Structure formats: structure tokens, C-alpha cells
């Protein structure tokens, strides 16, 4: 009995010692020692100087987008391996990072990878860890909308650090917050939907539409892209329905929508685990979901494999990618991913994931950073002012075309409308059917600081949009213009 007691006491003491050791390790945290993600411990010399550039990446390893952690990191890793001489730590697991990158002779050290969960709260905590504890100079990320708004606001308070968006698409991030040191080389959710309103009004002949969208910033932004363009072309949005995030039963929201004989078409912006249940609820309440009367945003891309094959021919909004275009730059991008990675968990082989929106957008962010750092000779000792200036004026060549930034450091780039096609295995896949050239964030002045997408914004006004009627059709992967 006594022996057992002594043992228990010893174990308890051990636990206490372990906790104290953890605390001691935390207390010994200082600004000059970090552990690289690649696994080897290194000592960085100075922070904010040009002897070493400390890079942090805020990705997503939990929450609705946790599965795309590997793709995010593969985008960053491939860019640094291809253009900055980095060595990928593990070609079968991009989340292990890379080592040995250098730009203009200045080493770039990956000091940490943040683990977001698509909430602003965690994004800020992770950002502080990366930029304050690990002393990051520059951060790439985050992935999703609400996170990016919070990070852009954080950026405002830290002007001598630079932030490049990962793949987040909330409009507020750049147009509303306007942090001078936050750059976004991907489009926002509204831009990604450019072309859908045009297709609905002019090709499908919709004169009226109903929009059902998740009730949060990215979905509002995404729906706003359709609404702004559809109304600009002359259509009328007669119903907007907003199911809250995490809704499990969509029947009441389907019931709020007009009947199929009361409206010409429906635009869906319901994501995550809600995409398919929402469509099912519509079928139960209103009748079949047809490819000519229903369109979706990029959320339908994520659910394509599980959607009914009868949806072949339905149009969906873009995600800034068009991997099926027959362009040399598209093939080159696939080859880069294939060259540096074998697999990207949990989806398997790397090559087929080369044109995932998450991978491409993180890749573009990393490539932009590399080009920006090259432009300033790797010198960020001026509180990164020169780097930020260089980033703002980049013309960034990407897999599908070039990207420039507007005055709010927001991408202006081509967009792509896709259509569901049936693949060999009988499931649905995507085919690019139109290129919408150089779409800007404001949609011809529809959006501005102070009038961000919400439940009521934008209104439904006819206006001239430069790209409406000027889309370039794509036939068998070849743009016809």
C-alpha cells in the first residue's frame, strides 16, 4: 500500500515537473531562437534586418477547410522550391515545410506554420504567435474570409511587417480595411463570380432570380458578385434568403424561396456540409433542381463528386483557376507541383491537385513575395517600405494569366465560368467555358468602402460593366479570342 502511495506521489511529482518544464521552456522564449518547421533548430541572427528573412504561413489545419492544409503549404513550398532554391522537407507531406530558401543571397527561413480553423479568433491568436513569438517578418495567409478581415486589421497595427493573403475571398479585407501592408493576389468572392450574372441573363434567359446564400461575409461577397452583374445586365433579384452557417435542416429556407414558376432561376451560395442538404431540401419543397434553372458558386465545385449527374451542364462560378485551359503556363504549373511533391494528403497524388484554388492562390502569394523580395534585393531593413512598394506594383505572371493590384492592393485578374461535365467514371467534373477579362473588385463602382456586401448590399441596379457581353468563350480548353 505504501509502495503504491509512494509511486503515485512520484508520478504526481513527475507531472508537476513536466508542467514546470513546459512553463520554463515558454519563459525561455526569446526573440533570437526559433525552431524551423523543417525540423532542424536554427538560430536566426537579427529580426527585421536583411541577414535572414523570417517567413510565416497561416494555413488551416482544423475546421471546414482543414483538409486543404496540405494544398496551401504545397502552393507555398512549390513556389519557394522553384524560384528561391528551397529544399522540400518531405515530398509526401507539404506541411513539413522547406529549408534552404534564399532570395538575392538573403536566406529565407520558414519560422512557423499557423494552424487556423476558419475563425477570426484563432486566426488572430495564430498570427500573433507567428509574428510576435516567432518574430516573422512576412506572413502568407490566411485561407478564409472572416480570418482575413481580422488579419488585415492586425496588419494595420503592424506596419513594419508585410502580409500577403493566402486564399481568403471576403471583400472587406481589402476594400473596407485597406491596410497598406496587406496584399491580395487572388480575387475576392464577388470577382470569382464574374460572368455568372451575364450567363444567367444572356445565355439562360433569366429575367428574375432568387439567391440563397450562407449568412456570413464570404457568402455575402460571393452572392454579391452574381447579384451585381445580373442586375447590371438588366435582371432582377426578387428574393434573397440567408440560412445561418451550420444549418442542418434547410427546409424552412427552401420554403422561403419563390416557386419555380415564379422565378426564372436560383443562384446557390451554400457551402460546407450544407451544399447538398440545401439542394435536397429544395427538391423536397419545390421540385427538381435542374441545370438550366440553378447555378452555384465555387461551393458546388467542392461538392461536384457527390452531386447528381443530372446536373451536367449547370454553370458554376469560378475560384480563380482554370486547370483545363490548354496553355503552356497551365502545363508548366502542373509540372512544377509534380516536380516538387509526390503526394498532398489527404487527397493523394500531387499532380491532379495542382489547380486547386487553395494551392494556386497560396502559390501566387508566395511567388509574388519572392518577386517582391527580388525587386528589393532581399533588403527589408527599411521597415519593409521598399518591399511593400514593390509588391504593390508587381505584374505577377500566374498559371492562367497575369495579375496586377489596384490601389487597395487587391488583385485585378481574369475570371472563369465553369460548367459541370460528366467524367469517365460517371461523376461530375468541371470544364471552363468562358474567360471574363480583367475583373476589378468594385464592379464598376457597385462596391466601395462603406458599402460592403451584406444582406441588403448590393441593391439591384442596372449599370455598365466593362466585361458584360465581352466574355471570351472557351472551346475544348482553348479561349476563342
Amino acid at each position, binding site marked *: 500500500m505504501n509502495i503504491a502511495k509512494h509511486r*503515485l*506521489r512520484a*508520478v*504526481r*511529482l513527475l*507531472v*508537476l515537473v513536466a*508542467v514546470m518544464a*513546459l*512553463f520554463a*521552456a*515558454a*519563459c525561455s*522564449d*526569446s*526573440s533570437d531562437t526559433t*525552431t524551423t*518547421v523543417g*525540423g532542424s*533548430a536554427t538560430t536566426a541572427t537579427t529580426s527585421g534586418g536583411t541577414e535572414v528573412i523570417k517567413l510565416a504561413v497561416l494555413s488551416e*489545419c*482544423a475546421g471546414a477547410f*482543414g483538409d486543404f*492544409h496540405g494544398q496551401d503549404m504545397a502552393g507555398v513550398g512549390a513556389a519557394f522550391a522553384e524560384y528561391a532554391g528551397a529544399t522540400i522537407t518531405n515530398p509526401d507531406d507539404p*506541411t*513539413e515545410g522547406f529549408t534552404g530558401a534564399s532570395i538575392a543571397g538573403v536566406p529565407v527561413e520558414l519560422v512557423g*506554420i499557423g*494552424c487556423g*480553423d476558419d*475563425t*477570426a*479568433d*484563432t486566426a*488572430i491568436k495564430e498570427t*500573433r*504567435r507567428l509574428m*510576435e*513569438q516567432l518574430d516573422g517578418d512576412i506572413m502568407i495567409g490566411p485561407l478564409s*474570409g*472572416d480570418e482575413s*478581415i*481580422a488579419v488585415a*486589421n*492586425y496588419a*494595420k*497595427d*503592424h506596419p513594419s511587417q508585410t502580409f500577403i493573403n493566402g486564399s481568403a475571398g*471576403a471583400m*472587406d479585407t481589402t476594400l*473596407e*480595411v485597406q491596410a497598406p501592408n496587406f496584399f491580395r493576389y487572388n480575387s475576392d468572392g464577388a470577382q470569382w463570380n464574374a460572368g455568372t450574372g451575364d450567363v444567367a441573363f444572356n445565355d439562360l434567359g433569366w429575367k428574375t432570380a432568387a439567391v440563397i446564400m450562407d*449568412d*456570413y*461575409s464570404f457568402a455575402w461577397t460571393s452572392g454579391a458578385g452574381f447579384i451585381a452583374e445580373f442586375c447590371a445586365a438588366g435582371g432582377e433579384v426578387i428574393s434573397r434568403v440567408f440560412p*445561418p*452557417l451550420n444549418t442542418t435542416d434547410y427546409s424552412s429556407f427552401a420554403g422561403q424561396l419563390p416557386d419555380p414558376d415564379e422565378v426564372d432561376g436560383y443562384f446557390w451560395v451554400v457551402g460546407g456540409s450544407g451544399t447538398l442538404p440545401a439542394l435536397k431540401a429544395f427538391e423536397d419543397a419545390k421540385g427538381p433542381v435542374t441545370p438550366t434553372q440553378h447555378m452555384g458558386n465555387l461551393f458546388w465545385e467542392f461538392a461536384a463528386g457527390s452531386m447528381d449527374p443530372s446536373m451536367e451542364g449547370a454553370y458554376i462560378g469560378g475560384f480563380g483557376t482554370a486547370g483545363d485551359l490548354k496553355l503552356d503556363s497551365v502545363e508548366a504549373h502542373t509540372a512544377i507541383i509534380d516536380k516538387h511533391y509526390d503526394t498532398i494528403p489527404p487527397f493523394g497524388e500531387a499532380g491532379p491537385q495542382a489547380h486547386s484554388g487553395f494551392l494556386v492562390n497560396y502559390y501566387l502569394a508566395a511567388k509574388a513575395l519572392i518577386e517582391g523580395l527580388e525587386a528589393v534585393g532581399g533588403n527589408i531593413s527599411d521597415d519593409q517600405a521598399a518591399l511593400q512598394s514593390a509588391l504593390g506594383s508587381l505584374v505577377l505572371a500566374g498559371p492562367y494569366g497575369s495579375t496586377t493590384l489596384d490601389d487597395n492592393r487587391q488583385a485585378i485578374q481574369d475570371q472563369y465560368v465553369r460548367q459541370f461535365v460528366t467524367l469517365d467514371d460517371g461523376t461530375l467534373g468541371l470544364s471552363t467555358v468562358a474567360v471574363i477579362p480583367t475583373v476589378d473588385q468594385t464592379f464598376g463602382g457597385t462596391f466601395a*468602402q*462603406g458599402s460592403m456586401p*451584406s*444582406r441588403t448590399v448590393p441593391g439591384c441596379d442596372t449599370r455598365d460593366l466593362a466585361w458584360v457581353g465581352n466574355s471570351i468563350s472557351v472551346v475544348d480548353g482553348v479561349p476563342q479570342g
Partner: protein
Amino acid sequence: MAALRFVWRARVTAARAAPELGSRRVFTAERVVQVAAIVGLVVAPAFTSDFFVSFVLTQALLLGVVAASLIFLAAYGGMVSLAQTLMFGVTGFVIGNAVTTGGSKGLNLGLDPWIGVILGVGITTVLAFVLGAVASRSTGLYFLMITLTFGVIGFYFFGQVTTFSGFGGVNQVRSPPFIGTPGQFPERLYYVAAVISVVVYLVLRYITRTPFGLALQGIRDDHVRMSSLGYNLWIHRTLAFTLAGFVASIAGVLFIWWNRQIDPASIGIGAILGLLIIAVIGGINRLDGAWVGAIVFVVANNYVRDVPGLNQIGLGEARFNTIIGFIFLFIVLLSPDGLIGIGQRITRSLTPARMHTSRDPGYDSGSGSSEMM
């Protein structure tokens, strides 16, 4: 006669809990630890990095304050409240809506930060009274469920009522100029949080020894007897809940000054459980367990993933939460009364048997836990 004996027992146990009132033993191990903790709080910024002060210590202090409100209710009122995160969050959202000047979700009223504090604390305290009045009629598991419901309703309220926030939250919340931003002046908010923590600790300890506190403990131990003695159980429990809400709201003020941003995830189910974990691993029977639990929680969350070798065994960045879960599980399995319990045992093993005194709030911790739940 039985009732008189009961009150007498409550007073005796409370007197036992009161450390050294009228005692000649000034230099007890506990007193030494308390003094060391205060000295440590004062000098910590001189020996640690800005990040550690701003992110780890300040966060631990403010989480400690809100956890103390939970422990106060649990240990002295027998009410394990999962609504404390809501109280803390309501203050944050009220201040966020009141003081932002535009460019953020919410009302953007642009008021002075101090008016925001008054509104935040005031509204939260009133809300705590109202919710407490509802919840106080139930006990045990039902009380736990009702308060959990309050917390979840709060999460969805701020997520879905976009007039006040939306899931994106309220950003760019200003703090009073003398606090500044934590990035610029990490020590300022740290010392404010440290002083508030000490004051909250002392005040809550004092309250547990007032007639109100003793009655509360009596209600915790045997509400039938207290009721037959003429005590109004409902009003005592409601007032305790209101007081705990007030304390949590102070933590909410510190949080919004510290984070400059709040969104529904800050008060979601993860945060609710996080607070419960803090209280349990620290020691849910002792107020000081709140801060012990908070510092371990914050340190573990922040540093466990940097432990060399974890990546090699498949527990790297993406899975660090698993490790943290194991640590907490380990602590709770080894010591049901948390880290404070371990500390107490060590203290007892180092002091002569005759000096042992109970530090539990008037009852045996093991049976107390089961009563509470």
C-alpha cells in the same frame, strides 16, 4: 437544534477555510507561494520577452479572472456555470459596438472607450442578473445545461445578428490611450490585468467569508436546511451569479483591450470548454486554481507544438491539440482537484502533520465535486 448545528458547522468550516485569521503562523508554505506569485507578477516583464508578457501572461491573467468567476460559483455556490464565457463575450461585443468608429461590423457608435467600459460592464451585469434569475431555480446537471444553452445562444446571437457583429466579428476596437495597443506597450495592459487579478482574488475570497458567502456555502451544502432556516435560496444564487457575471465582464474588458477584436468564436463552444478545462486543471475548488489553470492552458496551447521531436512521430503542427488533450487528461486523472491539489499534497508532504489545515472551501473536495455535478 439540527438547524443550529448546521449553521455552526458552516461557520466552523468557513473559519477553517480562512487562512490564519487570528493565527500566529504567518509564514506558511501557502503564504510564501502567494508572496512569490505576486513578486513574480511584478518582475516577470523584466525577465521575459514582450511576446510572453503580452500574449501569454496577459492572456493567462484575464482568462484567470473569468475562470475565477466560474470557480467562485462552482466551489462556493455549487453552481457549475458554462455561461461565464458569454458574460465575458457580451462585454467585449458591447464595447466593440460602442467604441469602433467605422470600418468594422457592428454599430460603430464611436463612443469614448471608458463609456464603452461602463456600458459593457453595466449591460453584462444586468444580463447576468436576468439569466441568473432564470437559471438559479435549477441545480446540478440542469443548471449546467441551462447555462450551456445560454452560452450557445450567445454564440449564435452574435453570429447571426449582423447588426451587432456577424461571424466575422468586430475589429479595430480602441482601448483607452493610457493602455495603448498591446503590441506597442505590452507591460501596460499586463500590469492592469495583474492588479485586477489580485483585486478579484482578494474580493472574491473576502466575499466567501461574509454572511452572504457563508449562506451561499450553506445553500451549496444543504439547500433544504437553509431553506427551512428562512434563507431565500433563489436570491442568494441569483446574486452570486450576478456577481460572477460582473467579474467575468471585467475579464471581458481586459480581453477586448488585449485582442482589439472579438467574434463569436471567442465565446463559442470551444471557448466555453476551454474555460471549464482551465478551472478543472487548475483546481475547481480553489480560487487561485483559476490562474494556475489559465497559465498552464495558455502555455500548453502555445508551446506544446514547438517541442522537438513531435513532428517526427506524427504529432506536429496539425495535431498539437491531441497532445494538449493528453496533458489535460493526465493532470485530471492524476489529481481530480487539479494542479492546486498536487501543490497542496506536496506542501503537506513537506510540512509536519500537526500543521495541516484544510484549504478547501469548507468541504471535502472529492465529495464536493460530485455534489456540484
